[in-house]
């Protein structure tokens, strides 16, 4: 019952949050100069004033901004995210069509970053002044400071001209359709570079965080107790220290899920990955308001879901949370 109430309250807050995101995004987008009709006109090589005016009224752009917001929210409440000005398709189907590609990219990057980041961090904490530890620190600082698009472009140069073994663009090779196994392998092959460039920043952060957190925990009284019990160092490390050191990492992973989505925009653009990120990038350029708002709605939804999952993980990892 307590859990049910808790979940109900969380859902209520999440709904308020989503509406807040929509209203704010709507207003922010309108603040940007230019409108969809101008952009369309530019692409079509010019347009008469009459056609512009009729398009504006067709899209409802001639109404005051607040009235437009009202109409949007009203439609949103009935599950209608509107039509894309550019594709002339329902925004919802446009997004659902591209969502799997983004989820695949982001989740792969996340899993790679968390697994290898924590592993490296734990290894580094075994000898805090050792060679491996210092190497990890150097690589982390580079990985952390390098912008994602730059890492991505370097990887493209490396794997397109110097060592052409990985595809640098798209999600599938044009001609492949040889059953689900070959298709999956093909997607995985295309996934390597984008996922790597997205993961490297977070991998760097997680390895540093894990190292610091492990060193902190290794100096704690309960680790001394574990050693005084005669446990093997392996057990001290993984059973006693790591389980505690992982708590701050869970928190940071949750907080950064939004950043990861933002990073996906850049990576998808650089690697021509057909996901939500590239759609977002293109929609901004096209002033495709409904698509952009739909994307922001889905992003906030993903972040909220990620935070809920983190909450569950936290409760599983730390028995003290249930009590409070």
């Amino acid at each position, binding site marked *: 019952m307590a859990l049910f109430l808790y979940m109900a309250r969380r859902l209520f807050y999440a709904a308020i949050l989503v509406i807040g995101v929509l209203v704010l995004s709507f207003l922010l987008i309108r603040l940007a100069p230019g409108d969809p009709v101008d952009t369309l006109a530019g692409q079509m090589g010019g347009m008469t004033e009459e056609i512009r005016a009729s398009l504006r009224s067709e899209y409802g752009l001639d109404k005051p901004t607040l009235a437009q917001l009202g109409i949007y929210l009203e439609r949103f409440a009935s599950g209608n995210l509107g039509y894309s000005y550019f594709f002339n398709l329902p925004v919802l189907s446009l997004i659902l069509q591209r969502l799997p590609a983004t989820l695949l990219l982001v989740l792969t990057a996340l899993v790679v970053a968390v697994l290898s980041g924590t592993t490296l961090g734990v290894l580094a904490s075994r000898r805090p002044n050792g060679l491996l530890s210092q190497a990890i620190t150097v690589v982390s600082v580079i990985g952390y400071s390098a912008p994602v698009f730059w890492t991505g472009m370097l990887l493209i140069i490396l794997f397109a001209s110097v060592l052409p073994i990985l595809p640098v663009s798209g999600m599938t090779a044009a001609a492949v359709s040889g059953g689900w196994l070959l298709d999956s392998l093909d997607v995985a092959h295309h996934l390597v570079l984008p996922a790597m460039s997205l993961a490297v920043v977070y991998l760097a952060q997680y390895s540093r965080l894990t190292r610091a957190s492990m060193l902190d925990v290794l*100096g*704690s*009284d*309960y680790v*001394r*107790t*574990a*050693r*005084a*019990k*005669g*446990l*093997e160092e392996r*057990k001290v490390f993984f*059973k*006693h220290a790591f*389980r*505690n050191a992982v708590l701050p990492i869970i928190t940071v992973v949750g907080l950064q899920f939004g950043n990861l989505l933002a990073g996906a925009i850049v990576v998808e653009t650089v690697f021509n990955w057909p996901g939500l990120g590239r759609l977002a990038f293109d929609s901004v350029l096209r002033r495709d308001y409904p698509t952009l708002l739909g994307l922001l709605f889905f992003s906030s939804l993903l972040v909220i879901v990620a935070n809920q999952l983190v909450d569950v993980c936290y409760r599983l*990892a*730390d*028995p*003290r949370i249930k*009590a409070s």
Partner: protein
Amino acid sequence: MDGAPTTLLDISGLSVEFSGGGRTARVLNDVALTVAANETLGIVGESGCGKSMTALAILRLVPSPPGRITGGRIVFGGEDLLQAPEQRLRDVRGHRIGMIFQEPMTSLNPVLTIGDQLSETLIKHLKLDARAARARSIELLKAVGIPAPERRVDEYPHQLSGGMRQRVMIAMAIGCEPQLLIADEPTTALDVTVQAQIFELLRELRARSGMGLILITHDMGVIAEMTDRVAVMYGGRVVEEAPTADILSAPAHPYTRGLIACVPDLDAEEDSGADLLEIAGMVPSVWDLPKGCPFADRCAEAMPRCVAEMPPTSVLSAGHRVACWLQEGTGP
């Protein structure tokens, strides 16, 4: 050394150094101690005198870096623990020597159940299977006076009070029936009433099992009540060691006399308005120990020689040793 029946632990010449920032501190200096089976040795001294470090050094748990055991012998059961391989030492830790720490609030792992933390020692050392270890854990919890042990065994440390957690620590330390138990200020963090209960429990366990007990404290009252012999530590050295009765009736070192004088006397009728006594001055920093007696600058009876030279150890009577120039050559 003084013909104790069965010497369990014999420490001699133990030295520990800490290094950092290009400097070296001698945290323990030529420490010698013995403990016999069925005996309680008290180690007393102010914070930073090296008493906890001695306890950690016995199990080679000195944090390293920055610490390092630089010399000495710690003979336990005929074997020098300082020479033993790490693997061998892990068989001693928690099995033949149990240890209880000062801070029950932080000494238990917050994310593991009480039962898990008790069982793992039993599984490791006594080769019990999980079910037998759990049954034995419940027995141990009962033995240290925890009510409803069948329920407590599945709880987490945060669900227990400080006193209960220290009982769990004790249960953990005695689980494998060690020959020696080291208790490092086991009650400092606890209420006075709980303190008395914990000491009662330790006394009972010692009497029942015949193990040796090292009790580290800064409280002379605890020493008087609990111990058979006392080692007084100061500045990383044992400055006086004697049977408890001798220390209390005829303390030889000025520092020991100071410690005893500092215990407030609740029965005192006259001078009831008098201030509590204290030993003037501060414990010298381990980074900057003097050449001579470490206590010289706080000692009312200090002589020029005390500052210049470290006093040798004099034997005053059977089992009563002191390192002080005042006592030089006064032995039997």
